[in-house]
């Protein structure tokens, strides 16, 4: 196995300007450290996919690295709006941002279809909803048995998917536990997949039906303790709600944002994540 590597190498090898990239994690296990490394390497012109863009996409958008975002809920969970995303959509700062907007059901189904190797997802959705009129990627198929018209959206097929997980074993099999979100689907729908993990262990000792990604479905594995902070890693550390509240202040102002990014991302490295997560381990 040569797939264990540094975060720098993982991002540098697999993520290229202009690519379509999904950083997934549904509230839980959001790959913050990997997003920061992508920002440090200045990899731009990206199309980012994510159900809930959250703070990491606010940061990448604010840094001007994003051409387009595909999403279903662009909020700071439990706090409010994403101010850098808003600034990009409303004022084209620092550059115009193209958006492709879906519902959660559509995105979840589209990841599922991508993992399943299908060209599209079919579901009962968007009934009476306005997105149908503004998103040409929402179409329909007719059931040949009942005549019911169902919604269809293209399968999601990222160039690269990036997730954070609890553990990898020495072979590179990865365990995700707790709120598993769409991470398995994100990995299986992508052409390449990078996983950051809290720790590498000898054996996973997982429940037979636990969510495990076999090593041969992954392209790079990096041990980054605390790599999900201020999101959380079930069994390791809690969600840092204060950091989410604080982000609302930072992102409210372009200069405050740039200063924060310089200090905490551009002038830092992934080692700071362990320190940050450790601060809130007590509550886990």
């Amino acid at each position, binding site marked *: 196995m040569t797939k264990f590597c540094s975060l720098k190498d993982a991002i540098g090898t697999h993520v290229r300007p202009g690519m379509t990239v999904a950083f997934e994690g549904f509230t839980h296990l959001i790959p913050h450290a990997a997003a920061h490394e992508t920002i440090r390497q200045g990899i731009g012109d990206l199309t980012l996919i994510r159900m809930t863009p959250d703070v990491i996409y606010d940061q990448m958008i604010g840094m001007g690295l994003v051409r387009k975002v595909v999403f279903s809920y662009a909020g700071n969970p439990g706090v409010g709006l994403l101010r850098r995303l808003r600034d990009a959509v409303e004022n084209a700062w620092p550059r115009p941002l193209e958006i492709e907007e879906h519902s959660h059901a559509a995105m979840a189904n589209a990841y*599922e279809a991508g993992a399943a190797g299908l060209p599209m997802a079919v579901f*009962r*959705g968007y009934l009476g*909803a306005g997105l149908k009129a503004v998103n040409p990627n929402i179409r329909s198929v007719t059931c040949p048995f009942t005549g019911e018209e169902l919604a269809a959206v293209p399968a999601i097929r990222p160039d690269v998917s990036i997730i954070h997980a609890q553990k990898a074993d020495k072979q590179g099999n990865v365990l995700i536990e707790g*709120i*598993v979100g769409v991470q398995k689907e994100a990995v299986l729908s992508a052409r390449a997949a990078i996983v950051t993990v809290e720790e590498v262990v000898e054996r996973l000792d997982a429940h037979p039906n636990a*969510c495990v990604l076999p090593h041969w479905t992954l392209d790079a594995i990096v041990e980054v303790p605390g790599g999900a902070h201020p999101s959380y890693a079930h069994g390791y550390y809690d969600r840092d709600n204060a950091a989410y509240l604080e982000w609302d202040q930072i992102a409210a102002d372009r200069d405050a944002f740039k200063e924060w990014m310089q200090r905490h991302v551009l002038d830092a490295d992934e080692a700071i994540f362990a320190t940050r997560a450790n601060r809130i381990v007590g509550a886990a």
Partner: protein
Amino acid sequence: MTGFSPDEMMTVAAARALSSRDVCFVGIGAPSAACNLARLTHAPDITLIYESGTIGTAPQVLPLSIGDGELCDTAVTTVPVPEMFRYWLQGGRITVGFLGAAQLDRFGNINTTVVGDYNAPKVRLPGGGGAPEIASSSQQIFITMKQSKRSFVPKIDFFTSFGHGNGGSHRQDLGITTAGPSLLVTDMAVWRPDPVTKEFTVISLHPGVTLQDMADTVGWTIRYSDAMTETPAPTAEELEVLRALKARTQAAHNREVAS
């Protein structure tokens, strides 16, 4: 209106509409407080589902996000998000879906997408998340939110999720088989749709609320039920349980921030 806040009255009134037989798709904020209050009072066997995949959860404190760890720790099971939307929501198992809104019209149509034009918005809001399909796949929809002229509008800027459309049979005309918005609980009143026109109609005013208060906070001409009553004030038990829940929540979140 002494002894309780409008916010407490809103939560209590919403909680009362739930029973132990309900399976609720819960949103964050007011819905989460109402659902957990119901669970801690008259509906101990209610099933609470959060879109993060946690089924049958029973948190000690209110979560800040729909994916907090305690939701998983206390759940009967936690499933992947695609399964949540396919088997549990689309599968028709949700008896009550809770929604809030940035803008709401009198037919229960909801906007949480944009203020202004979609392609050049004045305010870009978070968007729909699960709402478009919660609105169509849940057996019925409860809406809970505070009244204001900014949010209770004659015409919403964007149809994030469909309520009763233009009213009447509009919902069925689109092939939607579920009941749609059947309850609106605000900080001032309890509303239910008229059986025929589907326009939200006030069925009870919370204690102390005046018709002027109503007119000042709603952007359309309000219909009142002929049988309108006063919402029963929160009982001592309801208030006690709700306040204890909020106090535990505050303490827990402060501890997290402090540590």
